[in-house]
């Protein structure tokens, strides 16, 4: 509450009839002439407020407190301006000390404020009273206390443990912070379930496949845009979405001066609209383009001799349609297999062939490949999710990323890099607290069936190493490998965010007990028996994420910014959150641990109390807040949250620990917790160019230790998976819908980066068009549909219209179908159909229909949905995108292969 100072206000010496505002208000009050009539009401009202007016900007009286935006995986370090009088969040911006983005945030971060103060946020725990679960069925939620809510969940878990069926417990994760192991890994481990399913495979795992099987990095890249001279962005839209949008947006204007930018994308994306070259390829055929570019680079001798090698006699034998004798080529120690790549894939893939295949000019391909090659090694082949979140996307990812190898931009100045390693510590692990019951449960197969013959999911080259998120729905529905009885989902909305999401609605309806931790009553929450209101990650909780760009990685803190002293659990519980919310990854597991202990199972509570003391004072949670009333438990839970983040970041702020107990690899150094906490951001040293090159004494994380154009590491991984199922690699590839085979002259080679034709989901006759899904620039990972700015400014997505869910169609296609701008249309696919509005737009390739992802909510909030819980507003892309997979990576298919038809409604 703001205090009222009653001191007479000054009117800047205004005289006579020309009123100062405050006088005017009073005059208005007196001006009974107008009393009761519209115009004067304002004046009457304002008298009271006039006395309370500020005399300084909040920018000057308030405090900027550090936190982090998780509106996308840029995870920008943020500073939140908190009002000194009311503790209200007034503004959020990029962190001024960030070497990556400074105060520059992207619009998504600003949307956070409208999320925080969104009236449709869940304000306290709710329990379902209507046993019937279904879309459009009112759960008849009723409010209950946290104590009751946690008790309900604990009872369900105890029952599983008593019946020795803990594998029937499941945790699903969405966006997270790096306190995630507590809820996502340790909690199910201690309870005894292998079933912790992340969202990763509906994010962009296939994008990691390319670098993994060329240079051994299962990770996202960062790109040295400050030093590059050529960029080819493949389905990547770095000024709009993912990753480090804040950094790339700020650099883009200069990049255009410095470099040539080409964008491969069937729609005119934000980045394409500002770039030099736009290659609107037919969806699913990016791989052909990549092969042709590699062909040109080798044919014209534009490859990096230093990184790739050279013919012994210096004569370029990469002649179109001719194989090369490997003996004539002397490989550099940095890479291997370029000749094999040429012989198996590239030798006949010339621009003319590609032009035919992908539908852009041969000479444009020629021009870009040449420009890219000449700019090398300061040239970036920028891999986005678009070309590889496809049935056969893994190989496309390899082909696109291999271009960086050809020009030697891998880890090089002006090229592609990874993140320097950071100074954060792993959280204490629960191994000693896992009992036999748990052990027994943990031995079960995971519910997403990863690792089965048809799901290699080769994360880090390990069979079944990665998640197959969307397939978990089928696992649940088929009770294969087992039934799921209790689900705890957090910060995700699988009933909305998975392709063919109807399957998740059915799966969720089938699960007997489902508790969800969310800020809003999402589609997923609509099926829940228990809604536990989550704190908002940007303003109300402890956590840690990281940003990666400008040759650095930063460690970014989330802090409860509305509390005066975030270290004081009392303060945080009183002032740190708008409503009666709790933090998913820490407070809720802790309260659950206490409730389980009440019921006779205290391993988790022991674990937390023993392993998570305050690293500064050494006090355990119970020492800090003794007492068994629920309030003391809540305080301990918040203290646990604080201790966890301190332990996680300890090397950064605790000099003794840093020097004695941690393998410190450099970066900023802080002297105590408060110093670091108040700053909220930590920087690594700069990424050292070329340090992983064998020629510089480094090594790549591949099986060969070199950059592989021949897919040696992939070959080994595929063989391991095949052996596990007693089949050969060809069988694996056949089952998984790939065209490549081992040593078959009529098919692409199974191991080298290569082009495979799109695997169409749907018959081209019945569904003649390709569906181009793309993410909303104001999307906040699907959480902003209830936020008015995201609707009011929806037209920041080129071709979109404010407040309207539209499908972008080329006028030529529209004419054929008699569709006019603004017509109501139906988009149908084998998976389902949606209703939306037609937007005729030249920025989209004929034969394709593009639609921004994120509309079509039937719950989540009153703005997001037409009728909360009942009727959707707009069309939801996932209803027409079928549940298929790039099985080598486990990724769900969003792009390239989705066949649709459109017609007027």
């Amino acid at each position, binding site marked *: 509450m703001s205090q009222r100072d009653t001191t007479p206000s000054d009117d800047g010496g205004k005289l006579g009839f020309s009123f100062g505002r405050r006088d005017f208000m009073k005059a208005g009050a007196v001006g009974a002439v*107008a009393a*009761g*009539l*519209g115009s004067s009401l304002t004046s009457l009202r304002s008298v009271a407020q006039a006395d309370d007016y500020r005399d300084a900007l909040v920018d000057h009286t308030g405090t900027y407190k550090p936190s982090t935006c998780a509106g996308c995986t840029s995870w920008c370090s943020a500073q939140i301006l908190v009002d000194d009088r009311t503790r209200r969040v007034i503004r959020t911006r990029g962190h001024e000390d960030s070497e990556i983005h400074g105060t520059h945030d992207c619009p998504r971060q600003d949307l956070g404020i409208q999320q925080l103060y969104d009236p449709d946020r869940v304000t306290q725990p709710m329990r379902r009273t209507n046993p019937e679960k279904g879309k459009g069925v009112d759960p008849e939620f009723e409010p209950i206390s946290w104590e009751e809510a946690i008790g309900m969940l604990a009872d369900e878990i105890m029952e599983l443990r008593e019946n020795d069926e803990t594998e029937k417990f499941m945790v699903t994760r969405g966006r997270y912070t790096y306190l995630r192991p507590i809820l996502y890994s340790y909690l199910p481990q201690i309870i005894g379930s292998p079933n912790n399913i992340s969202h990763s495979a509906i994010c962009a795992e296939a994008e990691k496949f390319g670098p993994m099987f060329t240079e051994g990095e299962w990770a996202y890249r960062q790109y040295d845009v400050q030093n590059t001279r050529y960029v080819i962005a493949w389905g990547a839209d770095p000024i709009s979405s993912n990753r480090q949008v804040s950094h790339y947006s700020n650099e883009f204007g200069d990049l255009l001066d410095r470099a040539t930018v080409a964008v491969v994308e069937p729609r005119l994306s934000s980045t394409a609209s500002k770039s030099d070259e736009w290659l609107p390829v037919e969806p699913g055929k990016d791989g052909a383009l990549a092969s042709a570019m590699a062909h040109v680079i080798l044919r014209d001798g534009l490859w990096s001799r230093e990184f790739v090698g050279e013919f012994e006699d210096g004569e370029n034998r990469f002649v179109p349609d001719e194989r090369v004798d490997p003996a004539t080529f002397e490989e550099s120690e940095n890479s291997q297999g370029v000749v094999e790549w040429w012989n198996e894939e590239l030798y006949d893939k010339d621009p003319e062939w590609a032009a035919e295949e992908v539908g852009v000019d041969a000479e444009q391909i020629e021009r870009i490949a040449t420009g890219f090659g000449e700019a090398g090694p300061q040239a970036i082949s920028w891999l986005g999710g678009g070309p590889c979140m496809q049935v056969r996307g893994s190989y496309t990812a390899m082909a696109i990323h291999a271009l960086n190898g050809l020009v030697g931009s891998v880890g090089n100045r002006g090229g592609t890099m990874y993140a320097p390693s950071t100074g954060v510590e792993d959280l204490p692990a629960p191994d000693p607290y896992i009992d036999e019951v748990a052990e027994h449960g943990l031995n079960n197969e995971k519910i997403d069936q990863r690792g089965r013959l048809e799901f290699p999911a080769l994360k880090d080259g390990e069979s079944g190493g990665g998640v197959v998120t969307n397939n978990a729905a089928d696992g649940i529905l088929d009770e294969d490998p087992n039934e799921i009885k209790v689900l705890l989902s957090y910060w995700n909305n699988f009933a909305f965010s998975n392709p063919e999401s109807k399957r998740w609605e059915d799966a969720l309806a089938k699960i007997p007990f489902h508790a969800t931790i969310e800020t809003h009553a999402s589609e997923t929450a609509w099926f829940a028996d228990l809604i536990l209101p989550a704190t908002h990650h940007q303003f109300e909780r402890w956590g840690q994420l990281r940003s990666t760009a400008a040759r650095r990685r930063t460690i970014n803190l989330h802090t409860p910014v509305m509390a005066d002293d975030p270290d004081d659990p009392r303060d945080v519980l009183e002032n740190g959150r708008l409503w009666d919310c709790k933090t998913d990854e820490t407070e809720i597991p802790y309260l659950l641990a206490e409730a389980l202990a009440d019921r006779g199972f205290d391993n988790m509570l022991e674990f937390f109390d023993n392993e998570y003391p305050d690293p500064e004072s050494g006090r355990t949670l119970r020492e800090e807040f003794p007492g068994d009333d629920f309030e003391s438990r809540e305080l301990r839970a918040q203290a646990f949250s604080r201790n966890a983040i301190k332990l996680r970041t300890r090397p950064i702020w605790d000099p003794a620990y840093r020097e004695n107990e941690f393998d410190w690899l450099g970066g900023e150094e802080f002297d105590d917790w408060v110093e670091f906490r108040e700053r909220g951001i930590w920087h690594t040293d700069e990424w050292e160019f070329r340090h992983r090159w064998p020629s510089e004494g480094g090594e790549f994380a591949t099986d060969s230790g070199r950059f592989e154009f021949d897919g040696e590491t992939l070959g080994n991984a595929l063989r391991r998976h095949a052996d596990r199922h007693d089949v050969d690699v060809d069988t694996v590839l056949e089952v998984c819908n790939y065209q490549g085979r081992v040593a078959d002259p009529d098919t692409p080679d199974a191991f080298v980066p290569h082009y495979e034709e799109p695997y169409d989901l749907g018959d081209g006759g019945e569904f003649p068009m390709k569906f181009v899904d793309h993410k909303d620039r104001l999307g906040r990972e699907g959480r902003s549909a209830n936020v008015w700015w995201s609707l009011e400014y929806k*037209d920041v997505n080129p071709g979109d219209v*404010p407040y309207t869910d539209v499908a972008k169609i080329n006028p030529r296609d529209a004419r054929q179908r008699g569709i006019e701008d603004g017509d109501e249309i139906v988009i149908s696919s084998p998976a389902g159909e949606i209703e939306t509005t037609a937007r005729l737009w030249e920025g989209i390739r004929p034969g394709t229909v593009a639609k921004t992802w994120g509309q079509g909510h039937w719950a989540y909030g009153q703005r997001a949905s037409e009728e909360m819980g009942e009727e959707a507003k707009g069309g939801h892309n996932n209803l027409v995108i079928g549940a298929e997979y790039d099985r080598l990576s486990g990724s769900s298919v969003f792009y390239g292969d989705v066949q649709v038809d459109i017609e007027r409604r």
Partner: protein
Amino acid sequence: MSGATGGVSGLLDDVPSSRRYYAWLAFVAVGLLIGAYGVLTTLIQGTTTLGLTDQVPWGILISTYVFFALLSTGICIGITSLSSVFGLSKYDPLVKRGIFLSLITLAAGGLVIMAGLGQPFRAIPQMLLSPNPAAPMWWMIVLYSIYGGALVAEFALIDRFEEPSETVSKTVAVVALVAPILAGAMLGAIFGTAEARPYYGGMFASVFLLVTAVASGVALIAAVTIVERKFSSATQAVVPEELITNTLGKYLGVMAAAVLLLTALRHVFGLVATSDSLALAHQEMLFGGMGLWSVGVGMLLGLLVPMALMAYPKTRTVNGVLAASTLVLVGMFASRFEFVVGGQVTALTADNFHEFPVASYVPSATEFAIVIAGIALFAMLYTVGRELFDLNELPHHEEETMTHTEAVTDGGQDNE
């Protein structure tokens, strides 16, 4: 004749009409009620009750104001001053009623525009406290105030004084001629200086509005006088039929023709303009949704038909003139709307926040109610006025007034 009772006696002579008279009073009362509703809801709820948008901030209230203000202007410069300034005594019988009509149309216009302001109670104080001489709107209001004053004086001189000083009368009359001309010109300038909106035609707006003002003024005084003649023998006695059929009829016909020409020119120049948005505006107003009003009512019914009626001697009868003048009034109301909205119908920018290329505007029920308020106020004031004053009284200069009247009356009878 004794002014005070003239009107009333005139009524009493005409007993059968009295039932109609009370019906009329009831009609006016209903109008006032509807009007009051419109005005009050807008005052309390704010202009959200109006159909206006950020792209079309001026709607039917402004056009109705223009309609009334220019009626007033037109009567004064087109009829009364001919007698009071230029001594064309054949117009004497129309002078007092004309001045009175000018006054109450001005009042009606004032009500309508005030009701549409966001902060009506600030309007007058701020005009005085913080005048902006650069703004045509400020001048318009000043000039219309002066004009209003002059009208009151002019009316009082006729109504209250037996022998007013010639110089005073003349001075007042001259002011009552010059002020409205300038005021009307300023009203035109408000639109004309809006360079962002070429539809208004720059300085041509002032010319256009003044000419149309006279046409509507002549129409109003003709219509009212003819109706009065039907009710009251006194009016019949004072206003000869010849004055109506011959003088006013032809006058109206000529003015209708002039206005039709100007209107046509405006649209032709607009349609062929190189500025796409200007051409689009005229297309929209002529052939778009507005076409029925601007072409059908505004031009054909409101100008072409009356012109024809007045051109043919056969139709230039008393009732013919009544019909013609009524049509002109209706037409003018429509074309004021076309004029005001036409300037805003094409969007200025392709801002995705706004409609583009055409901005839509539909008057709300409340807006219509306020329009009715204006009309009802006019009707009430006139009804009261004709009770309180002898509107048939002739301005007393030159003594040959009576004979003149007789002469004309005879002439009138000849025609029967």
